[in-house]
């Protein structure tokens, strides 16, 4: 886990990461409610953090959200012509608050 965080910090691509609020608009459009204050649990290390505190990489074809504690992937979001595809296998849970 420590190694992974070190890796994340050494990686020049880290300069391209932003915080979870950068995908707040996309998530609000997909879920219909504000999501950056929504807590989620990392399925890898079980840390609970709000989406706004997750690390986001959005320069690729999709968007990847990583756990701030262990840097594992929690959510992947891809916009397709059919709609928004969310791969949530890295999340133990995500709380969607009443809008």
């Amino acid at each position, binding site marked *: 886990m420590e190694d992974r965080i070190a890796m994340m*910090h050494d990686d020049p691509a*880290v*300069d*391209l*990461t*932003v*915080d*979870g*609020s*950068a995908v*707040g*608009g996309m998530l*609000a*459009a997909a879920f*219909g*409610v*504000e999501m*950056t*204050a929504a807590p989620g649990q990392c399925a890898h290390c079980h840390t609970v953090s*709000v*989406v*706004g*505190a997750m690390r986001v990489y959005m320069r690729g074809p999709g968007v990847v959200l990583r756990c701030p504690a262990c840097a594992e992937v929690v959510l992947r979001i891809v916009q397709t012509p059919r709609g928004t595809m969310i791969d949530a296998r890295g999340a133990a849970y995500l709380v969607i608050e009443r*809008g």
Partner: protein
Amino acid sequence: MSIDWQLAMVTAVRDETPTVRSFTLGLPGWAGHRPGQHIDLRLTAADGYSVERSYSIASEPERAGEVDITVERIPGGEVSPFLHEVVVPGDRLEVRGPIGGYFVWEAGLGGPLLLIAGGSGVVPLMAMARHRARAGSRIPARLLFSSRGPDEIIYRDELDRLAAAGDGFAVAHTLTRQQPPGWTGYARRVDEQMLAEVIEPLGAGVRAYACGPTALVETVANALVRLGLPPDRIRTERFGPTGT
């Protein structure tokens, strides 16, 4: 909650520095925002190709029916040069928002408040400072603001006025590349020692908000943890690779 795209009318354009410009966007149906939130802006070309970028809201929520955004021109960028070179008052822009519920501060949340900005990262922190002043709050607040040179300090005059108001708001500048003769502020990149000095007068229970280029926010967040701030009191907004 409606997060649909809507058309904003550009009602004013103002230069802040040689490379930074503010735009006032008229939004008649605007539901209001919280300081620290942003909007998404979408540009669509005639062939249907579209790009989206996020821009923090600079204005305080007390101003109804419009928001200000402040944009740094990134050479070679897709969106910011367009906003600088093409957009004039009377134009319409597609936006959605307000967005975000995490990187926000309102007077009701309390303090003391530590704001750390690099370059255009000052924008959402300015919304917090403007809101604090308009709400008549006397919560102790300090802004540590890193800019490249004296001509690149965004909102310089307004920050001077806010700091002179005597209501508990202070500003410390650091100029990383070029300092004017007689400069008494800091003259290096933000580091742990600098943060320790700026945070000291605020005492215990500080809430910290750091915003700007990812590299700077990274440094600040790590240093604040080493200085003993609980991680849940440190909120960050990374703008990406750009800026100071």
